[in-house]
């Protein structure tokens, strides 16, 4: 059930994306798919003469089932790597992007910038969608720190307005990716720019994100690896990072790799 090859030997690939992930993957005002991971995949597509990508916007659940079942050959949804997931999906060798994840807190908790501190202070955390990468992140932290757990709650798959929740003191903090936070608060045009002195984003990690391949797509995954490697070396992903996340996250990663 893989994508069809046409007469020129060019194979059409269906790339599913979670369409609710501004600025990682989303549909713009004109109805076109865009976002960091989409644009990165477009660059890969340009490198691969034998493949032609078609982008299919959908939800996270459908994406996961669809890629597993072979309805889509690959999917992007800001997915992190876990060992368990390799049983279901083929992870390529090369990651696709980086995701800065941080705690969104009020002024009085400005200095809380690790999960340990957050947990120690017994602060409350906004619910996180059960099928999102951030949920996994906190869950992993909790398994590693059984006596200093963050109060993790699973919640809505959509429409949780973390900045507002923190501002209202409905919760003490929330987990967000940096890009969206900047769009809302730091950006002078952002919806919550007026809160820029009340609400803070404290990065606690930068994590690699991966495209998920259908288990049968070994050959295609290898082709992807080659292409993305080239794109990375050309520095094009850094540009995309700056464009969508307003920051070159690859630099952050370089530094932390130097440190370790």
């Amino acid at each position, binding site marked *: 059930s893989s994508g069809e090859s046409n007469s020129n030997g060019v194979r059409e690939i269906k790339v599913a994306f979670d369409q609710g992930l501004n600025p990682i993957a989303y549909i713009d005002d004109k109805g076109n798919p865009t976002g960091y991971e989409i644009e990165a995949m477009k660059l890969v597509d340009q490198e691969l003469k034998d493949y032609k990508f078609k982008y299919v916007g959908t939800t996270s*659940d459908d994406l*996961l*089932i669809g890629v*597993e*079942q*072979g309805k889509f050959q690959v999917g992007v949804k800001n997915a992190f790597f*876990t060992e*368990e*997931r390799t*049983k*279901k*999906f083929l992870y390529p060798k090369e990651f696709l992007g980086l995701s800065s994840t941080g705690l969104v807190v009020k002024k009085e908790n400005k200095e809380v910038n690790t999960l340990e501190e957050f947990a120690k202070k017994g602060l*409350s955390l906004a*619910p996180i969608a*059960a*099928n*999102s990468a951030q*949920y*996994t992140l906190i*869950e992993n932290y909790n398994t590693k720190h059984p006596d200093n757990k963050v109060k993790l*709650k*699973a*919640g*809505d*798959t959509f*429409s949780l*307005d973390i900045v507002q929740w923190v501002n*209202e*003191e*409905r*919760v003490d903090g929330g987990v967000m990716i940096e890009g969206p936070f900047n769009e809302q608060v730091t950006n002078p045009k952002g919806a919550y720019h007026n809160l820029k002195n009340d609400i803070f984003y404290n990065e606690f990690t930068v994590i690699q994100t991966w495209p*998920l391949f*259908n*288990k*049968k797509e070994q050959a295609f995954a290898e082709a992807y690896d080659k292409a993305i490697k080239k794109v990375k070396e050309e520095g094009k992903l850094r540009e995309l990072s700056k464009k969508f996340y307003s920051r070159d996250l690859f630099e952050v990663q370089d530094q932390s790799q130097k440190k370790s």
Partner: protein
Amino acid sequence: MNGGFNVEFFINTFFVALSGIPTALVVTIVVLLIALPLGFLLAMTRLNNVPLLSPFSKLYVSFVRGTPIIIQIFIIYSSIPLFLKALFEKYHIAYDVYKIHPLWYAFIIFSFSTTAILIEVFRSALKTVDQGQLEAAYSVGLTSFQAYKRIIIPQALVVAMPNLCTATVNLIKATSLGYAISLQEITLRAKVAANAGYNYVEAYLDIFIVYILLCSVVEFSFKLFENRLSRYKISKA
């Protein structure tokens, strides 16, 4: 299935999902206890054209039945705390509104919507009972209340039963929308479990089986009850 069906996960998660049943049932039962009498009374106001109440229940039905529950959940969940907070602050009540258990929201939200559905269910059922039945009850000296309780409602219930069953089953299923307010019920539990290994196929199958089991039991009880209630009718089949 070419993703490699994770049997172990499937079995474990089945019990995780099962553990969500009590929550789903508590919500369903509490909501029915509120919505059944309320829906019935409002249906009566419509049949008897009670001034004010009748147009109110009409408007109520159109709004609450008309808008998706998930949106009602969202609107209520995001605006009620704001409102309560302002209220509590004003009257110096030291209670953290955000500590209110999501169950309470679930009771309120699902009661709202189920009442609207039940108004229509009862209204249609009550229409099928002949006026002569009420008159005969009056003539032997029953009050309106007694007449309804003993004569009209048992007959109307027979007609209402299949639709009440649908409403109840729908309510059970709708409690899954409780994920939006972090209500720990069947769907949410299964999906939380699925995230670590992306075992969504298995999780959805578990959800499927649990709901089929739960709702079949409910449906079966309704059927028994319907048969009991309709003893007096000669079969039409």
